[in-house]
């Protein structure tokens, strides 16, 4: 397996060199150097095809040597690889008109599907498509740290384990959660315009994909009961304790969601 991986890696390198250099890219001056550029399975199939081996000798010995790009097309034509799908992780990208290395078969399927659905409006080269897929996966991974806003159980953790919200304790705990996940939070501020003797405490999360800010209210304000308010890109989440006395007064709110804890 290690040998096959090494061969595949060399083939990738060659394809990338060809793509970088364009049609006049890498040439080969011996049969063995040419064959060494292919993953083991493909190479074995080439070696069993006498007609193709003869052509390879012509290529490597002739004055007009071919690039790997051209050679791969010939290999497909020779029936070793059937169509553009056959060269294991090396595929023909119709948008860049070149062979490309496919790291994730699902990305390739999505790419082909997108081309089909877009009906001529999808001309992004595959390497750019794969990079954007990778960037998207990284954003999604970041967005789930330290909690996934689509998961109510995870969001409920922000309320803590005490019946009322202690802004100092909650700020320290939530700050730690975000910092351990790689995000910064701003300093906590006390709302300067509250009629309550127990004003809310506010802070923001910096550059998180989905979570924007927090309000920690110890209770006694316009909603009467303590709550943790999380502003997300999808809307406001209010985490309240259903055992609070007096109970939380919803006024005319319609947040994205209420999450009730029972403490």
């Amino acid at each position: 397996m290690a040998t096959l991986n090494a061969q595949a890696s060399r083939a990738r390198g060659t394809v990338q060199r060809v793509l970088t250099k364009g049609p006049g890219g890498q040439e080969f001056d011996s049969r063995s150097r040419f064959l060494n550029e292919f993953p083991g399975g493909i190479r074995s199939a080439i070696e069993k095809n006498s007609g193709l081996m003869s052509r390879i000798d012509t290529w490597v010995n002739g004055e007009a040597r071919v690039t790997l790009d051209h050679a791969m097309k010939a290999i497909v034509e020779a029936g070793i690889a059937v169509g553009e799908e056959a060269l294991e992780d090396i595929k023909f990208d119709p948008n860049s008109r070149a062979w490309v290395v496919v790291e994730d078969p699902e990305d390739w399927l999505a790419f082909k599907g997108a081309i089909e659905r877009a009906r001529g409006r999808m001309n992004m080269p595959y390497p750019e498509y794969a990079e954007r897929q990778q960037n998207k996966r990284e954003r999604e991974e970041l967005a789930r740290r330290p909690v996934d806003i689509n998961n109510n159980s995870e969001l409920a953790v922000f309320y803590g384990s005490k019946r009322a919200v202690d802004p100092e304790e909650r700020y320290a705990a939530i700050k730690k959660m975000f910092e351990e996940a790689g995000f910064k939070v701003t300093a906590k501020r006390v709302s300067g315009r509250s009629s309550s003797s127990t004003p809310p405490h506010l802070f923001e999360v910096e550059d998180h994909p989905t979570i924007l800010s927090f309000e920690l209210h110890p209770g006694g304000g316009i909603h009467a009961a303590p709550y943790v308010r999380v502003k997300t890109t999808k809307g406001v989440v209010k985490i309240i304790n259903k055992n609070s006395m007096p109970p939380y007064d919803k006024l005319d709110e319609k947040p994205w969601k209420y999450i009730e804890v029972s403490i």
Partner: protein
Amino acid sequence: MIADRTHPFLLKVNRVATGEEAQALEAAGADLVGFHEGDDVLFDIETDPFWTDERYVYSADLAELAAGLTRAEAFVETTSYGLGEALCAKARAAGMQRIQIGDHLALKPSALEACRSHGLSLYYGGRYITAEDVMMAGDLAAAEWPLLEALDLQVFTSTADAWALLSSPPPELTGDIVLMSDLLSLAARLPLFVSLNLTPANCEAVLQALTPTPIRGLSLTLSPESSGACHTVTVEHAAEILAIAASYLGKT
């Protein structure tokens, strides 16, 4: 700062999906027409898009979508990660001068440079203020907004009747919630569009209250979906609201 009350009051529509819609909304009174570029969604790269409706457009279609507009100005909506040289070039080729960013993440220097090189300025959308965000207006005014054309702010998206609370806040709450004066103060410090729960029934009252003020205009977002972070209207309601607003403002 002295409030600028001399600017025209503009009617801005986000997420227009077809050329025919754009022309119909322009005829109804829209001054600014946005097309929501969704290549990442349509190319199956973004699998958890903000909207699940069918109002995203291909960036390749921008020129065709904007071609039928005669008076209204077209712009393209995108995300911080969709903004780059390729989209800027397509926007300019479509005759656009503005791009709207629909999320809150910091913009890459390369994306801003692409905007500059194509002479594009930015609308900042994707922000909402709730009644309890009493410190947010000040924060928005103090924030840095590179290449700012205007901020498009969703107002009280988590309130059952945003306009009722903004226009007539219960006296017992006025010390604890965002007030109209906060928005006017913000609008005096940076160009501001506001989005409310506009309806044909409240449209004139909203315009009476907001004109003349430093607020640059009203913004509508088209979608059959409801959102916790954005007021939405259907195309039919938008056309009705625009017609009432345009008539009130003397545009038709």
